[in-house]
């Protein structure tokens, strides 16, 4: 099958318009679900730039959600007299900057570790971040931070944040797509396949890994800032969450590790399963997620994409 770029562009544009128009025709409950799906998809995509492409599965990306959210909150409370339309860009910039600086610094030691060691060291980073935020009064993690309401008058806040999450997810998708088709992206894939060989063949693995780490961290931080605003009030526990750390891996596993749309499919499916199908059975969530994880690893290590490919190949 030959790909027609015009057709693809048209389909993408149509999908974006449909998604953007979502809040106008969806019932309120599904606007909330859509918000969560877009937020998760954005996070999953950002995670996959490092975890999917380069194969460095981080187990602690909620660190960047937390750092982004708390930086934005603290900066915005300093300039609380500014009008709300200026506050959000300010918060986003501050959150992105702090994530960029922090990730660039920890990239040096932490990217020397591989596989499970990297995963657990990142978990450590997120736990340390959470404890520091919780225990140093300056960060107000234990007390909580308030965010000013941003939604313009006359617009439902849920729809407003839906659109923001959509914008964030689309930006992340665009960046992943650009990375995927660039020389840089090919370099990341070669790191995943065999880092030592890639390095021997002249791929600047250290630099590529660091850049991917920082990009991933910044995008995660941006989503975190939007998320914090949508909550309106955050404490340490609402952003540094271990279930987020896990979900990010599950999205990619479910959708297909290392594929462009894998995290989007995975996030959509998982949010649908947990929020809509199991919405009433809160006691059952942990069990269901665990069961899903076990089944995935045993039966479909390639995720939904992997299953589709297998079918295509055998057909």
């Amino acid at each position, binding site marked *: 099958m030959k790909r027609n770029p015009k057709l693809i562009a048209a389909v993408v544009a149509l999908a974006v318009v449909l998604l953007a128009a979502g809040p106008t025709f969806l019932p309120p409950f599904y606007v909330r679900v859509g918000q969560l799906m877009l937020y998760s998809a954005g996070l999953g995509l950002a995670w996959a730039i490092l975890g999917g492409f380069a194969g460095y599965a981080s187990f602690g990306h909620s660190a960047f959600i937390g750092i982004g959210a708390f930086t934005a909150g603290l900066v915005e409370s300093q300039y609380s007299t500014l009008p709300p339309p200026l506050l959000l860009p300010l918060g986003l910039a501050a959150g992105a900057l702090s994530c960029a600086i922090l990730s660039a610094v920890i990239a040096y030691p932490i990217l*020397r570790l591989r596989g*499970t060691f990297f995963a*657990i060291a990142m978990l450590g980073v997120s736990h340390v971040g959470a*404890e520091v935020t919780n225990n140093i009064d300056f960060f107000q993690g234990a007390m909580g931070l308030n965010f000013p309401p941003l939604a313009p008058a006359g617009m439902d806040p849920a729809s407003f944040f839906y659109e923001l999450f959509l914008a964030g997810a689309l930006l992340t998708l665009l960046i992943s797509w650009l990375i995927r088709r660039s020389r840089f992206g090919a370099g990341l894939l070669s790191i995943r396949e065999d880092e030592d060989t890639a390095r021997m063949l002249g791929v600047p693995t250290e630099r590529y890994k660091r850049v991917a780490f920082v990009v991933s961290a910044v995008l995660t931080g941006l989503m975190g800032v939007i998320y914090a605003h949508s909550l309106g009030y955050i404490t340490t526990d609402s952003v540094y969450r271990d279930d987020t750390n896990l979900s990010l*891996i599950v999205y990619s596993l479910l959708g297909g590790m290392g594929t462009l749309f894998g995290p989007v499919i995975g996030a959509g499916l998982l949010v649908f399963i947990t929020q809509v199908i199991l919405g009433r059975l809160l006691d059952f969530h*942990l069990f269901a*997620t665990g069961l899903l994880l076990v089944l995935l690893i*045993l039966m479909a290590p390639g995720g939904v994409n992997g299953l589709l490919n297998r079918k295509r190949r055998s057909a």
Partner: protein
Amino acid sequence: MDLIAQTLADGLVLGGIYALAAVGFSLIFGVLHVINLSHGILVLLGAYLALILSDALHIDPLLCIPPVMVALFCIGYVYQRLLIQRAVDRASVNSMLLTFGVALMLQNVMIWLFSPDMKNITPSYAFNSFKIGPVNFDAVRVSALIASLILLSVLAAFLRYSSMGRVIRATAQQTMAARLCGVNVRHVYALTFAVSAAFAGAAGIVIGIILPFSPNDEGTWTLNAFVVVVLGGVGSPAGALIGGLLLGLVSTLTAQYIGPAFPNVTMFLLLVLLLLVRPQGLLGNAFSASR
């Protein structure tokens, strides 16, 4: 001066228990190269079994160690044969996630069965204590420490002198070579897992008599085990002991002199530092998996 001595003593007691709680994790890691994130669940399972047994039979919780170890040995063997074995040869992150999935499920089951509340195993001598010089020792903590050290020595002797232990060590060193010499590697894997689960269960009992526990603690015990193993080195009881004592000292010293909220922070800084400087752990069983 007394405060320092007391803190050091507390740290060592705690460290001995950390070491016991980590030794199974270390063995699985060393032999199967699997990061067993359901380790904390096995620890808690031991604690809950002992709680039920000692309540039902009115016996000292430490006497529950043998039956609980046997039970967990069987559970561990089956768990490995049915689930873990299928993911052993895949990418390391896969087997880690598999155990994580199992941990989530079992944690949920434990919340249903035992409620999410904190529980305690209280032996009859719970409130006795004695003094050596200026330093105060609780009877419970000391008996817990002694039980830990005995169990660690038993495991060390098992690995060192028994033929089964020799086979396990051989498989850890070179799986392929062991297989060529006629070792049934799958059986050894399952057996290693079973032994590790048994020791995790025993650790659970020891933990249960000195600290309160709830199903939500499993993550803490898994992480502690991981830190201990990274600090001490993989696959040997001696490594676990060194790592455990170090972790115990660091966390009590931090809690005493920096602030009760910071043990985890120093613990992880130490962990990352050590991974960078000496990835094979202090008692270096060098292994290449980390880089």
